[in-house]
């Protein structure tokens, strides 16, 4: 097939967006479903094209789909190209983005049913997907930045979809502002690279970095700037605060944001520009350090959240931290190995490990959110304290949710296990410090996600909540029945597909196929069946599995069997002693709780609050300061024309004196 088809991958959703806003919404508002069909068709077609692109890239010897550039404008010798860069990294992202987006759109038909903003919703979703696709395909940083901002804008519109709700409008504003803070860094990074190399072309910049043409402080500054942008979008500490609030949007939006589009953009960006990072040890340490810290920091906050979507949001932040850690650790491999591993190898190692987790995470996290949406669809609340016992009413949702949770917790042989294992191995090999942090995080992850599972699905139904949270999600059409019921089929089918993917997606790399596609030739350990079981020849998988199992067990003990009252853990620590007495592998954490009994309620909650007040404060503060200045400065405009004339006269005098003394 001709290469031009690649253009359609991101333009098709744009057409869908245009069709909805220009034709369907003004003229066919009484047929809202047509909008959904337009979006689904466009993204479906883009998905097919993405598969084609992936196959083409796979078959081409240099793993590249050559798309000639279009010379767009020449301004005084400064040429602006329009071009696509479709390599293995892009091809994988394309399939993930279109695939996940397609499933989410199908699901949304059920979830958004009856919402008055139905066509608007699908228009923004199409545009959101289009921008993300453009972002991964752009061949120059300039165009990437354009799509990058487009993604930010669409997420703003989608998070604030129910803009009449103050919390939603606030969350949207927050997301927009906080990610913008990072974007300043990104822009600075782009400009640094541009002034160093006089080009925005990604491939050229990668080559220049590898050839040492950009080096030293310039390189480090550029890399850290880019990472700031990535940290904003991928919700890394300290710019992560927007993500938990972003659940104010419709749940499928959260699902798309958390799985394949918005947050993945940051990780993708770092992977895309990884050569720029790999030659600066400082930058790599920043990436790995922030990643690891974010992983454990976010996970700790997930332990105490009561809102199921919030738990998942913290989980996303934490998992993104893992991916950053993977990238950083992979890159640091070259430095840690004392030169035996060439930097090119380290680059592909980092990218392969990080992207592999991104790939797997997309499916199970998307599924978890769709599960949350399904639960909410049934109970009208996101507060787990009012759920419980849904297993009886929603068997299918329960099943898929548990599968996704197992995958997230990293249980063999589900997909999450494989990529998490690779991250642990890489960090163990090259930066052991972060390995322990990651391991603790594994425990926490397993604990909080099964805490959610048990609170939601086991026990007795606690009646939903007709109070505050329904008001918070008061979309018409979600009529409350007295007992929860399973969601419609249009929502369940995508969940089923994702459940299967959550199990099997990790197997793709059993014989190193995924890694070698990304340029990292892993040491092959025989066929994939051998690897499936052969993985246990090393001790590390046992450790991580055991850690995860421990987490699950603790959750089981506390929230299913109630051997230990969860509230008591917060208040007093002695009951924990009794229950966990014999579990020697819990000693460290145990001591921690003993020593600092306020850890759960004190520090973690404190972290959450600092989050809400300080970091948000800065973001909102900047916005409010500008507007405040504006409000103050407009007072200068007194309406008195003689006041203006005085300004002219004084201005002239000031300019004269200024020039007089300056020259």
């Amino acid at each position: 097939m001709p290469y031009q088809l690649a253009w359609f991958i991101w333009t098709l959703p744009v057409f869908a967006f245009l069709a909805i806003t220009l034709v369907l919404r003004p003229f066919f508002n009484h047929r809202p479903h047509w909008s959904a069909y337009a979006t689904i068709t466009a993204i479906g077609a883009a998905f097919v094209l993405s598969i084609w692109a992936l196959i083409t890239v796979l078959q081409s010897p240099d793993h590249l789909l050559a798309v000639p550039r279009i010379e767009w404008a020449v301004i005084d010798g400064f040429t602006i190209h329009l071009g696509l860069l479709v390599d293995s990294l892009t091809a994988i992202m394309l399939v993930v983005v279109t695939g996940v987006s397609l499933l989410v759109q199908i699901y949304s038909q059920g979830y958004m049913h009856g919402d008055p903003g139905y066509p608007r919703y699908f228009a923004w979703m199409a545009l959101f997907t289009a921008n993300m696709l453009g972002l991964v395909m752009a061949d120059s940083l300039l165009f990437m930045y354009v799509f990058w901002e487009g993604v930010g804008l669409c997420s703003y519109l989608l998070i604030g979809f129910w803009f009449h709700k103050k919390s939603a409008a606030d969350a949207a504003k927050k997301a927009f502002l906080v990610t913008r803070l990072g974007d300043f860094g990104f822009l600075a990074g782009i400009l640094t690279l541009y002034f160093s190399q006089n080009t925005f072309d990604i491939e050229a910049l990668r080559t220049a970095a590898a050839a040492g043409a950009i080096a030293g402080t310039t390189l480090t500054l550029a890399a850290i700037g880019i990472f700031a942008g990535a940290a904003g979008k991928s919700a890394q500490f300290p710019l992560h605060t927007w993500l938990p609030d972003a659940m104010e949007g419709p749940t499928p939006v959260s699902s798309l944001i958390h799985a394949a589009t918005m947050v993945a953009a940051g990780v993708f960006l770092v992977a895309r520009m990884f050569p720029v990072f790999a030659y600066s040890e400082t930058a790599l340490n920043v990436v790995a350090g922030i990643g690891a810290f974010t992983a454990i920091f976010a996970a700790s906050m997930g332990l105490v959240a009561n809102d199921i979507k919030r738990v998942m949001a913290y989980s996303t932040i934490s998992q993104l931290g893992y991916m950053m850690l993977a990238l950083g650790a992979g890159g640091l491999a070259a430095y840690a190995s004392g030169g035996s591993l060439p930097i090119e190898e380290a680059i592909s190692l980092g990218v392969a490990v990080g992207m592999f987790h991104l790939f797997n995470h997309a499916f199970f996290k998307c599924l978890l959110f769709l599960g949350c949406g399904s639960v909410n669809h049934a109970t009208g609340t996101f507060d787990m304290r009012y759920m419980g016992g849904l297993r009886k009413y929603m068997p299918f949702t329960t099943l898929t949710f548990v599968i996704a949770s197992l995958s997230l917790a990293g249980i063999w042989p589900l997909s999450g296990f494989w990529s998490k294992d690779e991250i642990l191995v890489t960090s163990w090999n090259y930066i052991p410090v972060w390995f322990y942090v990651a391991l603790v995080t594994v425990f926490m992850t397993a604990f909080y996600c099964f805490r959610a599972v048990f609170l939601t699905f086991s026990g007795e139904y606690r009646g939903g909540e007709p109070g505050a949270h329904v008001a918070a999600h008061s979309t018409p059409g979600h009529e409350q029945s007295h007992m929860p019921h399973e969601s419609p089929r249009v929502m369940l089918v995508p969940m089923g597909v994702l459940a299967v993917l959550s199990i099997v997606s990790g197997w793709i790399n059993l014989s190193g196929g995924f890694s070698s596609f990304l340029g990292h030739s892993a040491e092959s350990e025989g066929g994939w069946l051998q690897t499936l079981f052969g993985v246990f020849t090393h001790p590390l998988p046992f450790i991580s599995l055991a850690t995860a199992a421990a987490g699950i067990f603790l959750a089981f003990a506390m929230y299913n069997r109630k051997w230990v009252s969860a509230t008591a853990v917060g208040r007093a620590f002695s009951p924990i002693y009794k229950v966990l007495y014999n579990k020697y592998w819990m000693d460290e954490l145990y001591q921690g709780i003993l020593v600092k009994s306020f850890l759960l309620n004190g520090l973690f909650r404190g972290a959450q609050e600092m989050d809400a007040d300080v970091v948000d404060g800065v973001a909102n503060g900047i916005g409010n300061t500008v507007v405040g200045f504006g409000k103050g400065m407009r007072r200068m405009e007194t309406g008195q024309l003689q006041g203006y004339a005085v300004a002219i006269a004084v201005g002239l005098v000031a300019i004269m004196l200024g020039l007089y003394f300056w020259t």
Partner: protein
Amino acid sequence: MTVGLQHYVVLSAILFSIGLYGTLGRRNAIVVLMGIELMLNAANISLVAFSRYLTPPALTGQVFALFVIVVAAAEAAVALAIIMTIYRNRRTIEVDKIDLMKW
């Protein structure tokens, strides 16, 4: 001390400042307008003085001043017409009361 170019230029600067004060510091719109006329006159004095002392045969400054006078007349006519409209609307021509639009 013989009167020379500098005397004229300084005189014009003084008249310009007085005119400027008239436009900035007086409340009545017509006085403001008179201030502007003073400023234009001041500029003309310096133009004519330059013409006399710099390029005696060429008279460029005088030509310039001639045009300024024409423009000043046109400007005054339009200004007074606008002041009339204001007066019809508000029964006052005090410029500090004409501040409907601000902020």
